[in-house]
């Protein structure tokens, strides 16, 4: 069994144990016997006909699981949703990746999948916002856009013959700057309508990638670069050199307050990851608010006391949600 790795005192241990038991009783009763492990046979009604999905195999006419997880049934389809495995891409998912290689006309990104994903130069908007054919010069300047180890946000485009392709055809995708990248098990992220969040009260952006990579960074106004570009071109080229560098400096500077909030949000995600709770905006916000209301320092958020408290709050939240239903 996977234990929560925390240095707990005796009382904290008892409280955590109690909370976990409460969570267990809260989890839907219907699904209580749906957990299977490798080589367990899944009871099916053969008369209705069965479609074997992912994570299942046929053994002497019996349907058996090939991964540990939860059995899901959709009409005739029977499949096993595996927990704790690598990310399984679906078309349209918003993912965050790290550039591992700049190759010919493409970048290779690590997105926590079985293989590296490919982002073609032609399937992304140029930073200057101009729509045109990509020339050999663009190819040579690829490192100006993304370099190795840059963090990039993109969308899953689909499978091609040479692997998984991504695209970044919108202003909201692209390189991520001034923030933290956190990686959590992908099963903790649920696909939702919205994966880009702007926490206005803290001035930070939160991007919950479907692949379990989570970005917390300073809020960047999605401004139209095209207009700006024209303005700067029309400007006379005699701009004073040091005034540009000052502006540049200002652009690269994140105020302390924002940096603190970034760390706070990042720690909230870490706490959830330790406890392996689902990641959603409201839960992460709840944890940040809880830490602020308790006047905790940022580093204290990773202490065992706060983790136990978060677990208790979560149990409370889930039970109240259940009552409402």
């Amino acid at each position: 069994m996977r234990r929560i790795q925390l240095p707990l005192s005796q009382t904290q241990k008892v409280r955590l144990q109690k909370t976990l038991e409460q969570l267990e009783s809260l989890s839907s009763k219907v699904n209580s016997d749906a957990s299977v492990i490798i080589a367990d046979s899944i009871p099916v009604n053969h008369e209705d006909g069965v479609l074997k999905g992912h994570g299942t195999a046929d053994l002497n006419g019996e349907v058996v699981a090939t991964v540990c997880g939860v059995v899901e049934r959709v009409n005739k389809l029977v499949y096993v949703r595996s927990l704790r495995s690598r990310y399984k891409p679906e078309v349209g998912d918003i993912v965050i990746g790290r550039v591992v290689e700049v190759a010919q006309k493409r970048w290779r990104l690590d997105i926590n999948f079985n293989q590296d994903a490919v982002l073609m130069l032609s399937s992304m908007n140029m930073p200057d916002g101009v729509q045109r054919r990509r020339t050999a010069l663009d190819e040579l300047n690829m490192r100006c856009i993304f370099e190795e180890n840059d963090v990039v946000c993109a969308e899953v485009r689909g499978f091609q013959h040479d692997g998984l392709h991504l695209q970044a055809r919108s202003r909201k995708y692209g390189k991520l700057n001034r923030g933290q990248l956190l990686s959590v098990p992908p099963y903790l992220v649920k696909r939702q309508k919205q994966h880009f969040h702007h926490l206005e009260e803290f001035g930070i952006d939160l991007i919950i990638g479907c692949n379990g990579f989570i970005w917390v960074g300073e809020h960047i106004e999605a401004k139209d670069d095209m207009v700006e570009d024209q303005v700067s071109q029309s400007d006379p080229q005699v701009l004073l050199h040091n005034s540009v560098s000052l502006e540049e400096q200002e652009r690269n500077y994140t105020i302390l307050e924002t940096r603190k909030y970034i760390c706070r949000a990042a720690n909230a995600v870490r706490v959830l990851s330790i406890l392996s709770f689902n990641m959603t905006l409201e839960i992460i916000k709840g944890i940040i608010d809880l830490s602020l209301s308790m006047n905790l320092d940022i580093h204290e958020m990773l202490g065992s006391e706060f983790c136990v408290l978060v677990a208790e709050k979560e149990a409370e939240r889930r039970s109240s949600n259940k009552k409402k239903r």
Partner: protein
Amino acid sequence: MEYVSPEGLRLDGRRPMEMRQIRAEIGAVSKADGSAIFEMGNTKVIAAVYGPREVQNRSQISNHALVRCEYSMANFSTGDRMRKSKGDRRSTEISLVIRQTMEAAILTHLLPRSQIDIYVQVLQADGGTRSACINAATLALADAGIPMRDLVTSCSAGYLNSTSLLDLNYVEDSAGGPDVTLGILPKLDKVTLLQMDSKLPIDILETVMQLAIEGCKAIANYIREILLENTKQLEYRRGV
């Protein structure tokens, strides 16, 4: 030397058909995709699985997943502290054995163009490290969510003082008698690994093997329990 006393007890107080205490824990290495610790008595092994991930050596890309395994013994694992060179014959051989055993169970055709790395390290050695490594690797692979035909479990058995003994410890292992290491797929009822040191009459091999199979099945039951509890816990903790 007498390995089984007239009362029918072995050197460590076990009966001939008795296994050592087993204990398993999932999730020992936080950065790995899957990991586990497995203990059989004083033998303690840690396993970590990375992958499926991009193949490091481009020339090895194929339609099947590439399985790699590295076995090592910690310097402090044995009685006398020895510096072990990394690529010695013994560890290379055991790496190969573990790799082949696990590869037989993994559904590699479902994971094209990727590789799976299994790292096993012996923390405490007291006989039966091979079996313990295989059991730990199974747990780690299951934790990493890699599709497998069946669990693989392994156990050793031997024959000393004209008695078949289950799960030999270090003293019995180094007696120089026959030592059979067996790995099975419990649900499919198939053997994936069979190794033997020294010689044994064919009819006795049958009984020793039967004993080892029983041991493997007992371990399989224990591993199933651990995995099922782990899966349930992950599911309810996550919430809806």
